[in-house]
């Protein structure tokens, strides 16, 4: 074999790196961690689409906690929230080609998370699982009476959230917990911003009524 042409000399290492990245998966390209941390989500996702594993790690580290808590509030099952979040990020990596560069990342992420929660709730409707008490996560109170009262309040809140329609629950959680705007909520729910605002308002009012009925 003769000497490689300049074009081959330029493209061969890049092709080799690309093929290795495809075979091994994320994390094969070394990028300084600080360079990724300063980037917005959309830019990080664009790097993930280019095969940057460190960017994907940064994305997971940035959004994992929020997605876990979103899943816990959507399903009312904190024991399954970690599984949901893990599945969501695996889906993000596998479907990274379907992300449109430049579009907001968080609605795309929470759209995946919401669908996963819906699938989990559908499955659980067929075969209910044993749930854990969310009140175990609360910091300890001063006395047993306060502890019991706090447990009761959290239990009522969890039950009320579960009784909300899934669309309204998603709107309430995305607005009050994930701090999404109504435009972003509309992208997650697949509706107009006005409809997202209406869903959130109705969800809040319904939740308040449910909790007041339970109190009375």
């Amino acid at each position: 074999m003769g000497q490689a042409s300049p074009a081959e000399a330029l493209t061969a290492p890049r092709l080799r790196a690309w093929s290795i990245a495809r075979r091994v998966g994320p994390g094969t390209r070394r990028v300084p961690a600080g360079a990724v941390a300063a980037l917005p989500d959309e830019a990080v996702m664009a790097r993930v689409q280019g095969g940057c594993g460190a960017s994907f790690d940064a994305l997971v580290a940035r959004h994992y906690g929020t997605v876990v808590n979103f899943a816990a509030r959507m399903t009312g099952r904190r024991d399954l929230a970690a599984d949901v979040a893990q599945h969501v990020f695996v889906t993000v990596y596998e479907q990274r080609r379907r992300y449109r560069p430049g579009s907001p990342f968080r609605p795309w992420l929470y759209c995946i998370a919401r669908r996963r929660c819906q699938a989990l709730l559908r499955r659980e409707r067929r075969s209910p699982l044993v749930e854990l008490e969310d009140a175990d996560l609360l910091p300890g109170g001063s006395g047993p009476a306060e502890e019991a009262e706090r447990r009761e309040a959290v239990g009522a809140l969890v039950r009320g959230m579960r009784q909300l329609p899934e669309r309204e629950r998603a709107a309430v959680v995305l607005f009050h917990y994930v701090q999404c705007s109504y435009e972003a909520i509309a992208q997650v729910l697949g509706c107009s911003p006005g409809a997202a605002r209406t869903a959130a308002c109705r969800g809040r009012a319904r939740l308040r009524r449910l909790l007041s009925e339970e109190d009375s």
Partner: protein
Amino acid sequence: MGAECRRAAELLACRTGALPSEDAARMGAHLAACAACRRVADDQEWAEGALARYPRVPADASRAVALVRGELAARQGVTTRPWWPWAGAAAVAGSAAVALALWVPWAAAPTPGVVKAASLPPAPAGARQSLARPPEPAQVSEHRGETLPATRVAAASSPAAPRRVHHANRRPTHPVVMSGPTVREAGELPLPDPDPEPDRSAPPQPVFAVALRVEGDETGGWAVAVHDPQTGEQFGALCEPAPVQPDLPPAMPQPETVTPDTSAPTRGTSLREWDAGGWT
């Protein structure tokens, strides 16, 4: 909801404390006057406080990264399995299926020399007249298989074939093998001499016939394939069976009608009572 309320709804979309001071002042003035917007703002404020009580689920990000990477690696091990061996096997199976589909009709096709009675044209008028004889149903069952070993036979139920055969006057000179799926059995058509005193000087007509039992023919008829080696003409026909006159048994005597004696006492109608002492 008026224009002011629409503006209020937009402002309510902002979070508490996120409004500029002039917007917040206008918002406060509007909320003091509008009960609907006040209710919405009240619900929003209540939800902020209530959902804050929802306990946070602890999440270890570094552990999550390791978990997601492990899951991806496991999935990649599955998904990067080469697919082309299966594609090759599928291609081989598909080509085998195509070859089988092409071979089966070819294998079932008649061998060369086989005459398909179903494809025979109807008898030419001249041939039919030369073989005509007084109407007489063919009694094919008596001569079935006498000289003609018909191994594979075919139906001659051509739509153009006549329903009655009046010609069958020569014994076949050589066997004809036929094939077809709708024929139950085959046999030689009786070839009685149409002329009780035949003209011995005239050469025998080398016309022969094969009788074929047609399956599905509710009349029980026979299909006939006739071949004239001299002219090379072939034609098919259906012959009807002889009308069967059933031998009815003599009329049975009608049983006498017995009139029950209603005046006699009715007792002893069961076998147990018969065993006990008989009926009286």
